[in-house]
C-alpha cells in the first residue's frame, strides 16, 4: 500500500468522530430518499398487483334496475373485456352494544363460482353455501372494528326489512380498502360495513330477480375509457343509469391513490431538501478539512507529487466519507423501507406485499453525495494548488488579530482574556464562522419546518372539528326531503339546534377535466357547519354561483368567473351550467359550496334538504339516537367525535404518518450537523487549547474558549435557521397537502421554541462530548503534532 493510502486510512481513523457525523448526515439524507421512493414504488406496485389479481373493475356503472341480458350488450362495447352484473343495496347493521345502527352496503356474490370482477380475498371462514341466503361474508376491517367473527349472528335491515344473518367468513376486497359512509368525509372502518351474500338472496331482498343494479366493466389494454363510459351510459339510460364512472373516481381507490400521491409528493419534496442540507454540510466540512491539510499538501508537493496525485489522494479521502455515507444510507434505506412498506401494507389492508425499490434513488443518492464531496474537495484543492509549496507549507499565517484588538479595545475592560479569544476568533475568521453558522442554521431550519408541519397537522384537525364543524351530530336522509323535516328534528327532546344541508352528488366538468364528488348547499350564514377559508374566516357564499376549494379548482383547471358544467347524479339528473363565484383555501377535503337556496333553485327542487347538522344535549344522547334510528327517512347518523377519531387515525397512521419518520431523521441530521461543528472547532483548536493549558489556564477556561465559540455560533445560527425554516416549511407543508386535507404552514411560535430547544440540546450534548475529549487530551502530544 502506498504511504499516501496509509495516511488516508489513519486520517480517517483519527477523524472518525467527525467522519462518522458527516457520514451519518449523508446516510440519513440518502436513506430517506431510498426509503420513501421505495415506499411509494412498493405501495403503487402492490396496489396494482392487488387490483390485478382480484380483477378489480375499471368502470362502475350503477343503474336502477337493468335486466340481465344487458350484460351481454355491455360486453359488446368496443374496449370491454369483461362485464359482471351484481346486486347491491344500502343496509343498516345493528351492532350489539351500539346506540346507532351502522350504514353498510350489501353486495351480491354469484350463486356459483367466483365473481368475474371484483373478487374478494377470504381471510377467515368460507363463502356462503349455494342456496343459503342467510349466510354472509363480512368486510374484515369492519368485523375487526366491532369484534365480529365467523359464527356470529348479525342483524341488518335491508330494503326496510329486518333480517338475521350468520357470518360465515371475513374478506378483504380491493374495492373497499377504505370505507366511507355516505355523507361523511372521513373513511372509518367502524362506521361503514360491507356484506357479501348470495345473489339470489339479495335479489329477493332488493327486488332484483333477473336484473342487476350495478355493472362492473373491465377494459382491454389501451381501451378508451371515456368512450366506454358514454356507451355504457347510453345503454343503461333507459333503465335508470346513474352514470358510469372510472376506477379513478371510485371512493376507496381515490382515497388510496390520494394517500400514495401524498407520499409521492412528500418524497419528492422532503428527501431532496434533506439531501441538499446533508450535501451542503459535507461541502463545508470537506472545505475545512482540506484547508486544515494545507501543510501536508505543500509538503508532498515539495517532494514532487503532481497536483493530480495530491488531488486524487484528497478526493479518495472525501469520497471514502461520501460513498461510505451514501452506501450506509442505501442499506439503511432498504432495511427501513422494507419495514415501513410492511407496516403500510397492513395499514392499507393489502393482502400481500410487492417490495420494490426505485433504482433512481440509489443513483441520485450516490451522485449527489459524490458530486458535492468532490466539488467541495476540488474547490479547496484548487486554492491550495495555486500556492507554491513553500507558501503552502508555511503554517497558515496566524490570523491577524491586530485590527480586532484595536476594535475590541473598548471592550477589554469588560471581557476577560478567554472571552476576548472567543470574540477575536469569530471576528477574524468570518469565513469559517459563516460556514459553521449556516450549517447549524440548516439544522435549525429542518427542525423548524418539521415541527411547523407537525403543528400544521394538529391545526388542520382542530380547526376542522372545532371551528369548521361545531355540530355534535350529522343526520343524513335517505333522499332529499322537505325543509320542514328540520322542525321534526328540532322537536326531538334534547336537540338544541338543527341546521340544514344539502349534499348533491355530482360530476363537475370543465372541458375534459372532471371531478366526481358532492356539491354542498349551506344556509347563507351557516353556524354549525361553516364554510371557512384557511384563515378561519367564514366564506362568503354568494346568492348565485359555486365556491370551489383550491385543490378542486386546480383539478378542474378553472378560475373564478368561468362556467362550470355540473352533471347532477341523482333525481332527474339535470345537466347544469353554474358560474364559479370564487375559489377559497380550505383545510379539509375538496369541497364545492353553494348557497342552499341557490342550489335548490338550480335543481328546480325548492326547499329540499338532504341532511342536517345538530347540536344536542349530551345527557339525552342515547334517547336522541334511538329516536333518529326509528325515523324511516334517516339513512345515517354520524357522531362528530367518531369522525374526529377516524380523521386522527387517518392522518396519524396513513401517509401523514410519514411526517414522524421525516421528523426523526430531521432531528438526527440536526444533531449530526451540530456535533460536527463542535468536532471541527475542536480539531482546529486542539493545539491552541493545549498551549493555553500549558501556560496555566485551567481546563474550565480552555473549555470555555472552545465551547464559547460553539455557543456563539449556535446562537447566531438560531435566527438565521428560523428564517430559513419559515420558508422551508411552506414547501414541506405543500408536499404533505392532498386533495383530502391541506396542511397549513402558518407561523407557530411553539414550533420555533421547540426547534430552539432541539438545537440547543444538540449543542449541549455535542459540547459535553467534545469537552470530555478536551479534558482527556494529552497536552504533550497535542503540542507536538499540529492539526
Amino acid at each position, binding site marked *: 500500500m502506498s504511504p499516501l493510502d*496509509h*495516511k488516508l486510512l489513519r486520517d480517517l481513523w483519527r477523524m472518525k468522530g467527525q467522519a462518522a457525523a458527516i457520514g451519518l448526515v449523508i446516510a440519513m439524507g440518502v436513506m430517506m430518499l431510498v426509503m420513501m421512493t421505495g415506499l411509494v414504488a412498493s405501495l403503487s406496485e402492490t396496489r396494482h398487483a392487488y387490483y390485478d389479481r382480484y380483477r378489480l373493475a375499471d368502470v362502475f356503472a350503477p343503474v336502477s334496475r337493468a335486466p340481465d341480458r344487458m350484460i351481454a350488450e355491455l360486453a359488446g362495447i368496443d374496449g370491454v373485456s369483461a362485464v359482471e352484473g351484481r346486486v347491491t343495496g344500502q343496509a343498516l347493521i345493528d351492532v350489539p352494544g351500539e346506540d346507532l345502527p351502522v350504514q353498510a352496503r350489501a353486495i351480491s356474490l354469484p350463486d356459483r363460482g367466483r365473481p368475474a370482477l371484483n373478487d374478494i380475498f377470504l381471510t377467515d371462514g368460507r363463502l356462503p353455501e349455494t342456496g343459503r341466503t342467510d349466510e354472509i361474508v363480512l368486510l374484515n376491517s369492519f368485523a375487526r372494528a366491532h369484534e365480529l367473527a365467523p359464527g356470529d349472528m348479525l342483524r341488518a335491515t335491508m330494503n326496510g326489512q329486518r333480517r338475521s344473518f350468520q357470518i360465515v367468513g371475513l374478506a378483504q376486497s380491493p374495492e373497499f380498502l377504505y370505507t366511507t359512509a355516505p355523507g361523511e368525509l372521513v373513511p372509518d372502518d367502524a362506521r361503514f360495513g360491507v356484506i357479501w351474500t348470495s345473489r339470489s338472496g339479495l335479489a329477493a331482498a332488493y327486488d332484483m330477480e333477473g336484473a342487476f343494479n350495478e355493472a362492473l366493466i373491465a377494459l382491454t389494454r389501451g381501451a378508451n375509457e371515456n368512450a366506454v363510459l358514454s356507451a355504457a351510459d347510453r345503454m343503461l339510460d333507459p333503465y335508470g343509469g346513474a352514470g358510469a364512472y372510472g376506477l379513478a373516481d371510485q371512493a376507496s381507490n381515490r382515497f388510496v391513490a390520494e394517500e400514495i400521491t401524498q407520499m409521492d409528493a412528500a418524497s419528492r419534496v422532503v428527501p431532496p431538501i434533506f439531501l441538499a442540507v446533508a450535501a451542503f454540510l459535507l461541502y463545508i466540512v470537506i472545505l475545512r478539512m482540506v484547508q486544515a491539510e494545507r501543510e501536508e499538501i505543500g509538503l508532498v508537493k515539495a*517532494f*514532487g507529487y*503532481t*497536483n493530480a496525485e495530491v488531488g486524487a489522494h484528497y478526493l479518495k479521502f472525501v469520497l471514502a466519507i461520501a460513498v461510505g455515507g451514501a452506501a450506509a444510507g442505501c442499506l439503511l434505506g432498504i432495511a427501513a423501507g422494507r419495514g415501513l412498506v410492511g407496516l403500510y401494507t397492513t395499514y392499507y389492508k393489502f393482502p400481500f406485499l410487492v417490495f420494490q425499490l426505485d433504482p433512481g434513488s440509489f443513483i441520485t443518492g450516490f451522485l449527489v453525495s459524490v458530486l458535492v464531496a468532490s466539488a467541495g474537495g476540488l474547490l479547496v484543492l484548487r486554492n491550495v494548488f495555486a500556492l*507554491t509549496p513553500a507558501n503552502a*507549507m508555511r503554517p497558515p499565517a496566524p490570523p491577524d488579530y491586530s485590527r480586532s484588538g484595536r476594535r475590541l479595545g473598548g471592550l477589554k475592560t469588560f471581557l476577560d482574556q478567554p472571552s476576548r479569544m472567543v470574540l477575536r476568533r469569530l471576528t477574524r475568521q468570518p469565513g469559517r464562522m459563516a460556514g459553521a453558522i449556516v450549517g447549524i442554521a440548516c439544522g435549525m431550519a429542518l427542525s423548524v419546518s418539521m415541527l411547523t408541519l407537525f403543528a400544521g397537522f394538529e391545526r388542520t384537525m382542530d380547526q376542522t372539528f372545532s371551528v369548521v364543524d361545531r355540530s355534535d351530530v350529522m343526520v343524513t336522509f335517505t333522499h332529499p326531503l322537505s325543509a320542514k323535516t328540520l322542525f321534526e328534528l328540532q322537536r326531538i327532546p334534547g336537540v338544541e339546534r338543527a341546521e340544514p344541508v344539502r349534499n348533491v352528488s355530482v360530476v363537475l366538468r370543465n372541458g375534459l377535466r372532471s371531478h366526481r364528488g358532492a356539491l354542498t348547499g349551506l344556509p347563507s350564514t351557516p353556524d354549525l357547519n361553516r364554510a371557512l377559508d384557511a384563515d378561519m374566516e367564514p366564506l362568503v357564499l354568494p346568492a348565485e354561483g359555486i365556491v370551489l376549494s383550491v385543490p378542486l379548482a386546480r383539478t378542474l383547471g378553472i378560475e373564478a368567473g368561468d362556467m362550470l358544467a355540473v352533471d347532477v347524479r341523482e333525481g332527474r339528473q339535470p345537466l347544469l351550467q353554474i358560474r364559479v363565484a370564487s375559489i377559497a383555501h380550505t383545510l379539509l377535503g375538496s369541497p364545492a359550496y353553494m348557497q342552499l337556496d341557490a342550489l335548490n333553485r338550480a335543481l328546480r327542487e325548492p326547499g329540499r334538504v338532504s341532511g342536517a347538522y345538530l347540536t344536542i344535549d349530551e345527557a339525552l344522547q342515547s334517547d336522541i339516537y334511538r329516536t333518529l334510528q326509528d325515523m324511516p327517512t334517516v339513512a345515517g347518523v354520524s357522531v362528530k367525535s367518531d369522525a374526529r377519531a377516524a380523521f386522527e387515525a387517518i392522518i396519524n397512521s396513513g401517509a401523514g404518518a410519514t411526517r414522524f419518520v421525516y421528523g426523526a431523521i430531521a432531528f438526527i441530521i440536526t444533531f449530526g450537523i451540530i456535533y460536527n461543528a463542535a468536532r471541527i472547532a475542536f480539531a482546529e483548536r486542539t493545539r491552541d487549547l493545549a498551549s493555553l493549558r500549558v501556560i496555566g489556564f485551567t481546563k474550565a477556561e480552555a473549555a470555555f474558549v472552545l465551547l464559547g465559540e460553539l455557543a456563539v455560533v449556535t446562537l447566531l445560527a438560531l435566527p438565521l435557521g428560523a428564517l430559513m425554516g419559515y420558508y422551508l416549511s411552506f414547501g414541506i407543508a405543500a408536499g404533505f397537502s392532498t386533495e383530502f386535507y391541506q396542511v397549513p404552514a402558518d407561523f407557530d411560535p411553539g414550533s420555533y421554541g421547540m426547534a430552539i430547544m432541539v438545537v440547543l440540546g444538540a449543542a449541549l450534548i455535542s459540547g459535553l462530548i467534545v469537552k470530555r475529549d478536551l479534558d482527556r487530551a494529552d497536552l504533550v502530544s497535542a503540542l507536538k503534532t499540529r*492539526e
Partner: protein
Amino acid sequence: MPEPAFTTHRLTKVYGEGRSAVHALRGVDLEIPGGEIVVLLGPSGSGKSTLLNIIGGLDRATDGSAHFRDRNLSQMTDSQLTRYRRDHVGFVFQFYNLMPSLTAHENVELVTEIARDPMDPEEALALVGLRERVDHFPAQLSGGEQQRVAIARAIAKQPDVLFCDEPTGALDSQTGRAVLEVIRDVNETLGSTVLMVTHAANTAQMADRVIHFADGALREVVVNDTKLSPAEIDW
C-alpha cells in the same frame, strides 16, 4: 571549476506589497558549482531559506532568474517545477515537516515511492541511526529524531541536489556529526550538489565553498581549501 549546478542573476524576492513589503532577497548573483558542498551562513531573517526555496523549485522569485544547469527555473511551468523537484531535488526542511499520520518508514517511503532510483527506506533510516524506530510516528520521536527522519527522507531518493535547512539544529554534537557524515557520503558517492544552511559556523569547515549572507544579499563567498571531514570538525 566544474560545471555550475546553479546560477542566479539578480534574484529578487519581495514578500507582501507597499509599506509592509519585505525584501527577502535583493538581487542575488550566485554560482554554485556542481558536486560541491556549499554552506550558507547568515543571521536570522537574512533570506537563506528564501533562497533555498527558490532554487529548490518550491517558490518563485519576484524578479531575476535562477538556472539549474541550463534550465531556467523562473520560466518553468508549475508542472515542470514539480518534475524538477521529483527528479532532482532532496529537501531537509528547517521545521522537519514530517507527516504526523505516517510512521518514520512511511515518511521516507513517501519520497522513495516516486523517485527514480531510491534507496531502501530502511537503509536510509539506518544511515541516520534510526533502524530501531522505523515504525514510530513523529509524535513518538524526539525533535532530533524527527530531524533525522527528515534527513533520511531527503537522501533516500539519492538526489542530484540536496538542500538542507539547518539539518543539525536540534542535534547534539555526536549525532550532528553522524548526520553530516551521511550528507558528505551522499555528496561523495553520488556526486550530489549539497546546499546547506547552518548557524553553526564550524560546520563550514566541511564545505567546498562558504557563502555569507546578510540582509538578502551576498556578503562574501569563500572557497575553502582546507576541507575537513565532519569527524574532524571541532564542535
